[in-house]
């Protein structure tokens, strides 16, 4: 490869990384969930905590994204919503990622 081809490859990689970073930030924003008037992130950490805490089937306490305590009285419902939100955000991210990788954008 000559220097122009190498530069072009570098530029394409930069473009890819920029678009990927934007798409990832969008996914993180899409994961914001409001439940019982509190803000949560439907991220792996929250999902794992809720999954574990809900195994007893009883209500439990959790901190929202601003560290305010919330009693979750319907663990199954909350977990379901978190998973749906998480997967919806990641599905959109996956589609964007494929588009970026295939140079559709």
């Amino acid at each position, binding site marked *: 490869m000559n220097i122009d081809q190498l530069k072009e490859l570098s*530029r394409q990689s*930069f*473009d890819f*990384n*920029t*678009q990927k*970073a*934007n798409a990832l*930030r*969008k996914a*993180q*924003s*899409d994961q*914001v*969930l*409001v439940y019982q*008037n*509190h*803000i949560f*992130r439907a991220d792996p950490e929250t999902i794992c905590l809720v999954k574990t805490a809900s195994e007893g089937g009883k209500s439990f306490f959790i901190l929202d*994204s*601003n*560290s*305010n305590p919330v009693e979750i009285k319907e663990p199954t419902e909350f977990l379901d919503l978190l998973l749906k939100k998480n997967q919806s955000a990641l599905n*959109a991210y996956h589609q964007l990622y494929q588009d970026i990788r295939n140079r559709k*954008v």
Partner: protein
Amino acid sequence: MTTGVLLYCFDTSQVAYSKITERCVALIKKHLKLPITVVTNWDTYKNFGPMGMINYKIMDNETNNTKLGKPWYNLERHMAYDHSPYDLTVVMDVDYFCYSDKLLRLANTESDFLVHKDAHDVIKSEKMEYHRDAMLDLVWATVLIFRKTPRTKAIFDTVRLVKQNYVHYCNLYRITYPNFRNDYAFAIALNQISGHGDYDIIPDSIATVPADAEILNLEENGAVVRWKDITVKLCDQDLHFLTKEVANV
């Protein structure tokens, strides 16, 4: 309880904010479906095209501020508490375009005041930082979500005090930016009213199109922007356009 959007729009000699507002309003109607009140002056009011059902509040705005050397008329935001006819208000810059229902979702929380602390540049893909000399966390007053409570009244009253004594507060918090900015004023007010402690924030980052970016296309669900040889397509997410070229696309 009533919920609505409050916009401040004042044309300057260099930027037709009325044109930006027309786009902003269309997107609010599509994605948030909330009633809208526009605070404006007579000169700007005459420049608006048809926008459907909108409430207008006409006032004489202050015209003695600049941003990056250009006239910048956005000194009335501290009066949003009094200007808003809604119990729960979403105040946003007119160059903040809603391509999602994110703000609608955030309106249903128990927090009486929400603001972003983070914003990122969609071109350089990095966090947008203020001058870090300041001795407090700064906020982006681009979007404010507030409910009318004694505490939020106190926040807006404090913003007014900060505005009236801006040099003093800048010295107090080691803010070196010389012109008045709502971002700093609200950061100071929130810091004071929260007893110099934490306050509730919107936990994501504002996707920001920088001032020197070129807008190639504004589409139904997003925008295509370019800076030098970098082209980025952004869709289905809210965008804050610092480039005022958005008035002309």
